[in-house]
């Protein structure tokens, strides 16, 4: 019998249809992955199963947990089920825990709120689950506060809270999306082990098809609130009947063809760069500690070359990026672009600065919402001594918007009128408008859906051919870096541990850390290419 059986579930929030006749079932010990792009309703499906939908949501259909109809339960009955029969793990471990209460306290709360045990028993059960998820109390005392733990460790606490009462069903909403690849691999293994150990059903929501392929017994593909395809993982991957499924998989592994880079001629030279931070003193009169965020980094980026920089969070990628842009003072070494130093005695060298532009990760946060697109993308003009004006300016705006696949008419719109992918195109237009010699892409496609990401990668390849771009592409996503760069550097704890031609580094990594990274990254399951019809990107 199914542990969770969702039949014909439709959800409407304030007259807005969110889910449309969704069917789904999970057996004990089974992992079912719900996947799809943003807005597909996958998270809403998870929240519906918990009956934790936003205010104003109306459910129709049926959600049965162990044969019990959830939609008929009173709020008090639902509270008794949540945490006891169904546990839930969320995406953002950094914010999913209450910052002012200890981790032991928060795990115990799950047990005590259901009055399942005496406080003493609850305490030892909390200790037991915390060590089960890899936080033994001799190294991670229960008196720790969330801010004293890393993201991966916090996610383990969230998992401990969810499984403290051995629920029959665990729902995990993008449980590893915010984590590094190596941490992600550990958390996924933990989840899988828990499923076998406790015989739980696991409903996993994720946009990452590689994770889906590795974890799931069954896959449910959703789009715009509807299930477009579902079935046994192996079967579904082999047959992929729906073009949307096929498009998702192809976009996930999307490859682009970069034009050949010109013969090497150094553009950006980074020599022995050191960026140190002073840490607060441990004791009043001790010398302050120092943290080297960037430690003796040396590399050269040639004109026309596409260089990748990969590494886990906190490895110093972003600090290095900011140093290159002259936004961050360095304590040692030299950064120069075309032979000129980025720093002109304590200040940023404007002559160099105007030759560099940057595209950031967050397409929503990196624009001033009160300005029109024309003003947004011409912002870099203030770097120029004689900024273009009049019709020349209008021509540049039109050229750039066309180059990134938008229309010149879009110049008069505001940024909220665009989707995430379009915003990232505008960010690229903003970077390109002063024809910089170097562009830095800081996780520029990480926040995008796979299909949009594939389009942006295509756009970059086209722009490389049209404008001969030189860029440094910073990302934690190895598969993207693999296709969009000629050469790659691997960074760990402030140091570049390996660099070389991208294909060579990926197929034959030399440094043990690179090998760990590549091994930890989940791989897309191989598709049956012969069955592919036309390019599904075009179909959609």
């Amino acid at each position, binding site marked *: 019998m199914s542990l969770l059986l969702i039949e014909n579930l439709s959800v409407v929030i304030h007259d807005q249809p969110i889910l449309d006749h969704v069917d789904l079932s999970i057996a004990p010990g089974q992992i079912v992955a719900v996947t799809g792009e943003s807005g597909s309703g996958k998270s809403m499906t998870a929240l519906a199963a*918990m009956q*934790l939908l936003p205010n104003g949501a109306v459910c129709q259909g049926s959600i049965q947990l162990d044969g019990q109809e959830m939609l008929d339960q009173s*709020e*008090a009955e639902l*509270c*008794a*089920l*949540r*945490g*006891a029969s169904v*546990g*839930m793990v*969320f995406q*953002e471990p950094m*914010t*999913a*825990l*209450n*910052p*002012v*209460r200890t981790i032991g306290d928060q795990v115990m*709360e*799950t047990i005590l*709120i*259901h009055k399942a045990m005496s406080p003493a028993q609850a305490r030892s059960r909390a200790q037991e689950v915390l060590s089960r998820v890899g936080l033994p109390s001799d190294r991670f005392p229960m008196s720790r*506060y969330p*801010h004293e733990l890393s993201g991966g460790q916090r996610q383990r606490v*969230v998992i401990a*809270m*969810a499984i403290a009462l051995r629920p029959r069903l665990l729902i995990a909403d993008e449980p590893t999306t915010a984590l590094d690849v190596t941490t992600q691999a550990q958390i996924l293994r933990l989840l899988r082990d828990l499923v076998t150990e406790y015989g739980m059903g696991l409903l996993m929501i994720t946009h990452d098809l590689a994770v889906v392929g590795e974890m799931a017994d069954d896959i449910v593909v959703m789009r715009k609130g509807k299930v477009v395809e579902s079935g046994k993982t192996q079967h579904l991957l082999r047959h992929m009947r729906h073009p949307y499924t096929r498009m998702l998989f192809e976009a996930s592994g999307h490859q682009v063809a970069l034009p050949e880079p010109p013969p090497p001629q150094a553009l950006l030279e980074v020599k022995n760069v050191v960026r140190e931070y002073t840490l*607060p*003193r441990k004791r*009043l009169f001790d010398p302050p500690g120092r943290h080297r965020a960037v430690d003796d980094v040396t590399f050269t980026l040639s004109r026309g070359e596409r260089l990748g920089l990969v590494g886990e969070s906190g490895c110093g990628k972003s600090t290095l990026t900011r140093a290159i842009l002259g936004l961050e003072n360095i304590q040692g070494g030299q950064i120069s672009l075309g032979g000129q130093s980025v720093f002109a005695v304590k200040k940023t060298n404007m002559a160099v600065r105007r030759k560099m532009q940057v595209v950031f990760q967050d397409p929503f946060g990196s624009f001033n919402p009160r300005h029109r697109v024309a003003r947004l993308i011409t912002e870099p003009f203030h770097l120029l001594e004689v900024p273009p004006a009049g019709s020349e300016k209008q021509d540049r705006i039109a050229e750039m918007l066309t180059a990134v696949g938008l229309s010149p008419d879009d110049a008069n719109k505001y940024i909220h009128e665009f989707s995430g992918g379009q915003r990232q195109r505008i960010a690229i237009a903003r970077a390109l408008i002063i024809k910089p010699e170097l562009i830095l892409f800081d996780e520029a496609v990480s926040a995008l859906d796979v299909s949009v990401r594939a389009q942006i990668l295509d756009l970059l390849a086209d722009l490389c051919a049209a404008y001969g771009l030189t860029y440094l592409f910073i990302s934690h996503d190895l598969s993207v870096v693999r296709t969009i760069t000629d050469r790659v550097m691997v960074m760990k704890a402030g140091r570049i541990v390996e660099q070389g031609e991208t294909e060579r580094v990926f197929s034959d990594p030399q440094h043990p850390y690179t090998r760990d990274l590549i091994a930890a990254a989940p791989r897309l399951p191989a598709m049956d290419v012969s069955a592919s019809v036309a390019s599904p990107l075009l179909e959609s």
Partner: protein
Amino acid sequence: MLRYMLKRLMSLVLSLAVASVVIFAVIEVAPGDPASFMLGVNAQPDTLAALRAELGLDTSKAQRYVNWIGGMLRGDFGTSYTYRTPVSQMIADRLWVSLPLALYALILSTLIAFPAGIYAAARRGKPGDLAVMGATQLGIAVPNFWFAMMLVLIFAINLRWFNAGGFAGWEDGFGPGLKSLTLPAIALALPQAAILARVMRSSLLDILGEDFMRTARAKGLNPRQALWRHGVRNALIPVLTIIGLQFSFLLAGSIIIEQVFYLPGLGRLVFQAISARDLIVVESVVMLLVFAVITVNFLVDLAYAAVDPRLRGRT
């Protein structure tokens, strides 16, 4: 935690030192002769000379500063020029009215604001919320002296539960003193409570949108439990800031209320001293108020750390 406290304490001492220099400079060193300012333009030359000697204006400025600070540290604030009594005695008398009044008003305001703010946040957009928000809007808009007059009209003149004004003193025990402070405290507390309730509500609403509140619900807490166990304490930080500011205001800013209820408080003392150009009193009271404000800020900092463990390790 100890380091945090030490650091805060150091900043407290430093702020006091800076404040004392500023107050001294403004009053004593600013252009014009304090003695002639105090006596006015028609002063007799010999009276002026006598006052100058009394104020020690013939010694150097640095010497005067040291004397002033040294005297205050010993509890000697000098002698009031107009009243010819020790300033320390005057301040002590007034403080016995103003400090209890400020505390009383603050406690009342907190007792009103916390439940109101939490109630409104928990019922966002519903009639209960709208009613509370409407009431706070009124509380902020209406000046406290109007509340004061209404309170006198209702509870003193019509119902005769309280006296219309005056202070009974603490000599006859706690009760009569507290009773004579009740109406002024309510008048002071109402507008403050209105502000505090709004801060509590909006701070709590921010917290209710946090991920960990959803986590709490997923654990099986009902909305009420989630609000009390995870919401309220997290919402306290901005509320504490406002409470600190309000206390400082209540201590010195209640001149009008003291006037309405005829209370011998610090506010009236400052007001009278300024009117009489009694710089010795003004200087001392201002320094005392600065001391109070800085001390309250120190206590608020400690309260932050008590509420939020993330601040304890920080310096």
